[in-house]
């Protein structure tokens, strides 16, 4: 099935006509005023009606963290579980009922620290689950310790002299774990956020969305370079399938490959033109291309890519399992409990 055309359990031909309000629960939203989480919540609530999936088919599963409060605010099925384990719980849900639209809400600590193993195993199994990773590069809920995405040298409550951990690059890690869909967006770009959520929902297989999210209490401004009006255009490159990588307020710069090292080049000094640039190919089955993009983040001379890094087709875990069940039923016939109990060597005592 093509990643672009899939709709999960469409409710027949008629439109469901759901609205944002339909996805708002009656619980008071409890994040700090100014927290980036609000925007992600709002855009999610705004986007879901467009997916044309009945409300009762949505399940939002989260771990623990500020971000993990998210399910409480969605008027869908919701499960606020334990720290780091949402991917495993979601897997059990999706396998039991592949017809559900299952979403995992997680933080950089939840997904990459305690939950790192479930995270990479979910990706490799390619269960059809959508993961939204709120990356604020800090532990918000526990009041400000560094996280696996915090910068080397970061001063936090638990590292008064600076952290000595090298951070993960979540996109590189996901690609190393053979993710089939990886995207990035930010809490300050509502239209893009909506678009990416839709893309993730449409992808068949595990979809990972990394969202740059601001924690204005414990890590204020960590992403401002990439999210604020005045700096965003120079520091972010939008990925669009089939389009060259162009960025800058004046769209005057681009990314070209030198070997497999990306370089930022000017399009105005006459040296390079559009045709020299990398053309985005999210469907490249070789993960190398997306891996190259993922490392642009680590190079301060390059803009950071946002958008869909990769979206490829690969068989989903739950489909393969359902298929085996079908095949077995075909081969071995209907369940017959009595026959099962009496299988093997039996004898009668008179």
């Amino acid at each position, binding site marked *: 099935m093509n990643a672009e055309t899939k709709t999960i359990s469409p409710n027949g031909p008629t439109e469901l006509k759901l609205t944002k309000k339909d996805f708002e629960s009656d619980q008071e939203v409890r994040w700090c005023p100014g927290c980036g989480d609000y925007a992600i919540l709002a855009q999610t609530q705004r986007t879901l009606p467009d997916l044309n999936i009945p409300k009762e088919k949505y399940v939002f599963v989260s771990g623990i963290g500020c971000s993990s409060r998210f399910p409480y605010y969605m008027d869908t099925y919701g499960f606020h579980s334990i720290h780091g384990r949402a991917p495993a*719980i979601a897997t059990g849900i999706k396998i039991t009922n592949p017809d559900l639209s299952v979403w995992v809400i997680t933080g950089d600590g939840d997904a990459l620290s305690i939950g790192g193993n479930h995270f990479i195993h979910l990706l490799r199994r390619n269960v059809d689950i959508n993961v939204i990773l709120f990356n604020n590069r800090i532990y918000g809920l526990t009041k400000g310790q560094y996280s696996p995405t915090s910068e080397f040298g970061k001063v936090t409550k638990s590292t008064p002299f600076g952290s000595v951990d090298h951070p993960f690059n979540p996109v590189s890690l996901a690609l190393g774990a053979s993710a089939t869909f990886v995207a990035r967006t930010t809490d300050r770009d509502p239209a893009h956020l909506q678009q990416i959520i839709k893309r993730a929902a449409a992808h068949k297989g595990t979809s990972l969305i990394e969202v740059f999210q601001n924690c204005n209490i414990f890590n204020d401004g960590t992403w401002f370079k990439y999210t604020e009006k005045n700096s965003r255009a120079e520091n972010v490159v939008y990925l669009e399938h089939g389009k060259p990588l162009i960025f800058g307020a004046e769209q005057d710069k681009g990314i070209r490959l030198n070997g497999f090292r990306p370089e930022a080049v000017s399009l105005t000094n006459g040296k390079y033109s559009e045709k020299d640039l990398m053309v985005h190919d999210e469907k490249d089955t070789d993960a190398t291309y997306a891996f190259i993009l993922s490392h642009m983040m680590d190079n301060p001379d390059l803009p950071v890519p946002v958008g869909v890094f990769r979206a490829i087709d690969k068989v989903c875990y739950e489909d393969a399992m359902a298929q085996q069940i079908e095949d077995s039923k075909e081969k071995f016939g209907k369940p017959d*409990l009595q026959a*099962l109990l009496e299988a093997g060597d039996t004898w009668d005592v008179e």
Partner: protein
Amino acid sequence: MSKPVESLKEATIRFAGDSGDGMQLVGGEMANTSALIGNDIGVLPDFPAEIRAPAGTLPGVSGYQLHISSFDIHTPGEKYDALVAMNPAALKTNLENLKPNGILIINVGGFKDRNLKLAHYDSNPLEDGSLDKYQVFAVDMNTLTRKALEELGLSAKIVDRCKNFFALGMVFWLYNRTMDHALSLLKSKFAKKPELAEANSRALKAGSMYCEATEQFVTSYEVKPAKLPRGKYRNISGNTATALGLIAASQKSGLPLFLGSYPITPASDILHELSKYKHYGVRTFQAEDEIAAICSVIGAAYSGSLAVTSTSGPGLALKAEALGLAISVELPLVVCNVQRAGPSTGMPTKTEQADLMQALYGRNGEAPLPVVAASKPADCFETAYEACRIAIKHMTPVLFLSDGYLANGAEPWPIPKAEDLPEIPVNFAKDPESFQPFLRDEDTLARPWAIPGTPGLEHRIGGIEKEAVTGNVSYDPRNHEYMTRIRAEKIEKIADDIPPTEIEGEKTGDLLLVGWGSTYGAIRTAVEHKLDEGKSVSRIHLTHLNPLPKDLGEILKSFKHVLMPEINAGQLVNVIRAKYMVPAIGFNKVQGLPFFSSEIEQKIDEILESK
């Protein structure tokens, strides 16, 4: 078969050899054949650490013990009537328990110098007279097997691996067993390698023929069928019975079975067994670890599966946090814990009952859950089924305890009629009008089970304390106290369904033995012996360890002394002492082995005499 056939009421036989000698296979086949003949049987597979020890060494010895009888028995026996020893190490580790004048079948071919040294023998026991008090039958099975298979043109390696069937042939002859089943087993086992089927069949027949021809044994024996209750029987191990119990509960409840598991000895066979039954709608998910396993199960339960995870001690430890979540969100699931000797990695292939306290209390906060324990291999079926029933009816995770001895042990099982199994009604919430996530059933205090996909029941659950009825997050002090108590009360209420405790022996007297789990056979045998002797002793065996049966307090108080044998350092005994203020006495064995009934009998005598 002109030699005299002596009729025995029972016999205990032990096959012992190197791990590579295939003792489990032929031991199991002797068990199957005996069961098919109608004997009651009890078995004790006793193999070494999961990892292979070097051939011929003491730690490499693998044993299979088998008790066959013409009456109802409950244990794999203690001292053996016959021992098959394939090499010196096997002889050394097992001789101690061979009865005086017992039959000792030795594979002389395995008694090379090197092997004697590996077994730390200074002299050859076949020659130094140390075996004089036994009936020794020293046979060079290596050579005889080679001869028998000569014309098949197989490699020496393959031929040598057939000598276990030669040994089995001898034992078959000795106990007058038919070879039919063994021969058909070989055919199907080696369906794709008929030359192996043929080779082993020949070896089997050769072993039997050899006895017939050489008049090695003066007598042969027979053990007549036991007078078991009428019905259809099969031989079943604890792990298989557990798997079938789960499938049965799935079929009867109409819920698809989901098993999330991570392999671990001695529980892995539950996973292996269930993974065969895809056509019964069984989904098995081999998770990345035990935490993911139980979490997947929580998700499966949440969305309407009959959800089960299987593990052993260290794995249960890893599930502790998530089990607390399951208790907090009140979802139905079953945790099968096949106990093994601990602490830590301990002795993975050896049995123990030392995870009870962990099962009862191994979680943060006040987190009670029901615990049930199987008492015999076949009883794993019923008890696993009961665990599912409780989980679904009371909306709670349930801990099912088995152990290595039950898991690998086997016994004849009177196959139940599917239609006679208790019903397991499932009531998914459907009605948006009356629905509240934590509105409880008046009888059971269970909350409703509202699965995703049900229109109008969208709701949120989580591990933070919840407001009664609505399930919304609540930090209200009185609500927390209320919820803590109601969660406990819900579990207590399960006792309403527990049938009256059956007492073997008088309802009052000098001594009551209280058992749980796999000590069943040994305790029962001991008590029956003592009852035969006219002693004032009675016995109860507990399946429900939490909550305990309502009538238990009264029963305990009707006896002067209470004795509690456990394969641990004393666990249930403390629960009982604390709860009923009854000075129950612990009797403990922590050797990775089950009790012998004689050990218990001795303890009974001690108590009855001293007081």
